[in-house]
């Protein structure tokens, strides 16, 4: 029996893919794990790999065609084996090159690229009767809950949020602001259930301005000393190669400020807030037809040089659309920098489920009062967008104050 090769969901949001190039051709021997083709997804160009051993006996979809996820694109079988008709199982696959198929046929249960737990049919949720009852009473959407029971079945502890359920009986969950620091405990994050007041804030604010209730805080930062530090560092590095940019310094400062304000290093998760004990900074990068936020992981623990090298590498990959999913997912907070476009200040849109993003304007000389004189100094306007369901005004302001102190006195980053 020949095995079907399906268009797979190569990114979490991918609905269709454009077959850019077949790297294997009809008649080629293939082994499980071999790259068969390059596929352009909504985010990047990814590799479609073989899930069976044998020979690529039939290619159904020509290069350049766009097909919905789940459609058959090729067949793997024994040499000489035939497949029925033209081999195209889903009608839209062959006749609709380049244009997205209207009303794509129901995706067939595909062999997911990884051992995905998501149910093949997203409308049906496998859940225990007890989990269903708890979800119904608590208003939890079971479709959004990842099941840990057999075959991804949602069970009680998934609905309740296991780590929380155990501690609540013993002691009330710690108030996040009481211990706002990021601590490397070995556990990547801590889920803290929403308090009633938090739930009400979330509901009312979301109803007021869309799903993520943003508010904005702007501050102006004096960058004279950061500029001096940068110059000195680059002079030092000249001999060794590599250069530190303002962007690198800002990313590092943001990461370090987040360590001191875990309340801003968080994800909103419908029924709880996930406070991260790790700091992963998403860095918005403009690409030809949109933007993407590659992630600098553990940015608080990396040197400026490492951040610089990584940022350049990721930005390059983003522009050539070669980012892997793990390189653009999982950020805990983001930085969007339009400094190079001569923008004084702007507001950035939060990248959910993160709770905040800072928008970086252009560093420009400005006349500022200096005692009873006026002096011209390099100034930077930074605007933080906050998800009000997670961050309150004072919380965001405290974070910005730390960020400002770090940039105005870069030596503080060494503390």
């Amino acid at each position, binding site marked *: 029996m020949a095995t079907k090769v399906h268009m797979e969901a190569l990114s979490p949001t991918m609905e269709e893919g454009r077959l850019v190039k077949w790297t294997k051709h009809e008649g080629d021997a293939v082994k499980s794990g071999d790259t068969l083709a390059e596929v352009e997804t909504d985010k990047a160009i990814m590799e479609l790999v073989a899930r069976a051993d044998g020979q690529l006996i039939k290619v159904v979809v020509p290069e350049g065609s766009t097909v919905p996820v789940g459609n058959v694109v090729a067949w793997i079988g024994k040499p000489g084996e035939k497949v029925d008709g033209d081999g195209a199982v889903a009608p839209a696959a062959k006749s609709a090159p380049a244009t997205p198929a209207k009303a794509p046929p129901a995706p067939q249960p595909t062999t997911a690229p990884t051992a995905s737990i998501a149910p093949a049919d997203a409308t049906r949720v496998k859940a225990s009767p007890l989990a269903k*009852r708890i979800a119904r009473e608590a208003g939890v959407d079971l479709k959004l809950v990842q099941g840990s029971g057999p075959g991804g079945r949602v069970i009680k502890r998934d609905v309740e949020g296991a780590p929380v359920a155990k501690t609540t009986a013993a002691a009330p969950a710690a108030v996040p602001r009481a211990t706002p620091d990021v601590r490397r405990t070995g556990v990547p994050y801590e889920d803290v259930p929403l308090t009633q007041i938090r739930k009400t804030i979330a509901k009312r604010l979301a109803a007021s301005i869309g799903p993520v209730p943003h508010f904005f805080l702007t501050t102006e930062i004096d960058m004279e000393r950061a500029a001096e530090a940068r110059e000195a560092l680059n002079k030092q590095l000249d001999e060794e190669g590599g250069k530190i940019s303002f962007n690198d310094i800002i990313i590092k400062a943001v990461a370090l400020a987040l360590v001191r304000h875990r309340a801003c290093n968080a994800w909103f998760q419908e029924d709880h807030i996930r406070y991260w004990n790790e700091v992963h900074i998403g860095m918005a990068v403009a690409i030809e037809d949109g933007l993407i936020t590659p992630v600098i992981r553990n940015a608080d623990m990396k040197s400026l040089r490492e951040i610089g090298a990584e940022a350049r590498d990721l930005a390059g990959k983003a522009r050539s659309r070669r980012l892997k999913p793990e390189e653009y997912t999982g950020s805990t907070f983001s930085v969007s920098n339009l400094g190079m476009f001569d923008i004084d200040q702007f507001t950035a849109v939060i990248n959910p489920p993160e709770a905040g993003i800072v928008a970086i304007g252009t560093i420009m000389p400005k006349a500022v009062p200096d005692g009873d004189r006026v002096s011209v100094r390099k100034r930077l306007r930074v605007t933080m967008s906050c998800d009000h369901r997670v961050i309150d005004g004072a919380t965001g302001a405290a974070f910005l104050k730390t960020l400002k102190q770090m940039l105005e006195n870069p030596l503080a980053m060494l503390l």
Partner: protein
Amino acid sequence: MASFDVIVLGGGPAGYICAIRSAQLGMSTAVVEQEKLGGVCVNIGCIPTKALLHSAYIAGLLKESKEFGVEASGVKTDYGVAMKRSRRVSDQNSKGVEFLMKKHKITVVKGTGVVQPGKKVKVGSDVYEAKKAVVIATGSRVKGIPQIGLEINKTTVISSDEALLLERVPESLAIIGAGAVGMEFADIFQAFGVKITLIEALPRILPIEDAEASDTLAKSYRKRGIDVIAGAKVTKAAVGKDKVTLDIEAGGEKKQVTAAAVLMAAGRAVNTENIGLKECGIQLTDRGFIKVDQNLQTTAPGYYAIGDVVGPPMLAHKGFREGSVVAEIIAGQKPHAIKYDNVPSVTYCHPEVASIGLTEDQCKEKKLDYVAGRFPFSANGRARGTGETEGFVKILRDKKYGEILGAHIVGAHASEMIHELAVARENEYTVEEIDLAIHAHPTMSEAIGEAALDSLGRVLHI
């Protein structure tokens, strides 16, 4: 040096199941056993006692048979005959395990195994090497209470090991410990005409079961003439040649019990000595069990431990599951975690006691918002028909969501009926799903559906 993927130390329930599952997963496997395959369970535990309990059941039945229109005269009991039958049953089962080892091409090494560093096991002068893992399943044994002079001497102070091999019953027997073992032997020997005194240190017999189960059994035993003394402390024991005298304090009163023999049924000791644990870096817990992580791996990588040696509940079916799970872990699979709060507990005395989950007292301690539903077998048609109306089904449910927090069955066939509730709890069914499942009529199991309904305030047959 012979080598295997997996070497299992101990051929009891945990060990032999681990070996079978390992073999099923394509790993070459050896089991080291110093005595008969099947361990305590098959040879001197679960299996022979069930055979003897059935003898006791028949004896009890014949006493009451006249009422059912069957008159049996001249009924005599002979423990020796019952014992020999129980031995045959044990031997059959042990041979069955031997057959299973052959069927799965598992090498059985006879002798006492000692673990050595480098995933090796020494048996006599031979050393075997494990390529993947060594699994320790050496089990447990009975223990006496030497502190008060009750060291097991195998004549007047005996353990279940000796009780199972008696040719003749003693005239009278004091049983210390009213857990499953004590309860079952009290039942057996009472049916064979022995005068029984059952002594329990904790405030009630069957201390780990729900208090209502303890009460029902205490009443049933006293009705049969068994002297039940709970909350009792044995302060002194005088062990004579053909009798034992125990000084007991219970409820502020002092008492003396004299019996032809004492059966020690209070606790077990794990077999962790002289098997090389320390040399391999395998640590024990404060309570003397082998310390294991979530994957049942000991403090020495590559050495796993399962069954009684890793701690309570010391039950064959808990060992079975650990054996199977550990084999899958060794083979690189990710089996579902064992739910230790969903291991059924069964005592096979008459009437039987079976339970799963929390007792009512535990619900109170945990301050859970619960509702108890009950249904007595006296209101069950099938039970009336067979004259087995002792006992009840009790279901404790969470008040808000109907989760089955605990279930307790006392009555004939309770051991068979508890699994409906085990399946329900494993799958997180609530009392409503129990009710929705249609129970055949007339059956004892209907009482489970009725107890679920009672917890919802909708009981039908009372």
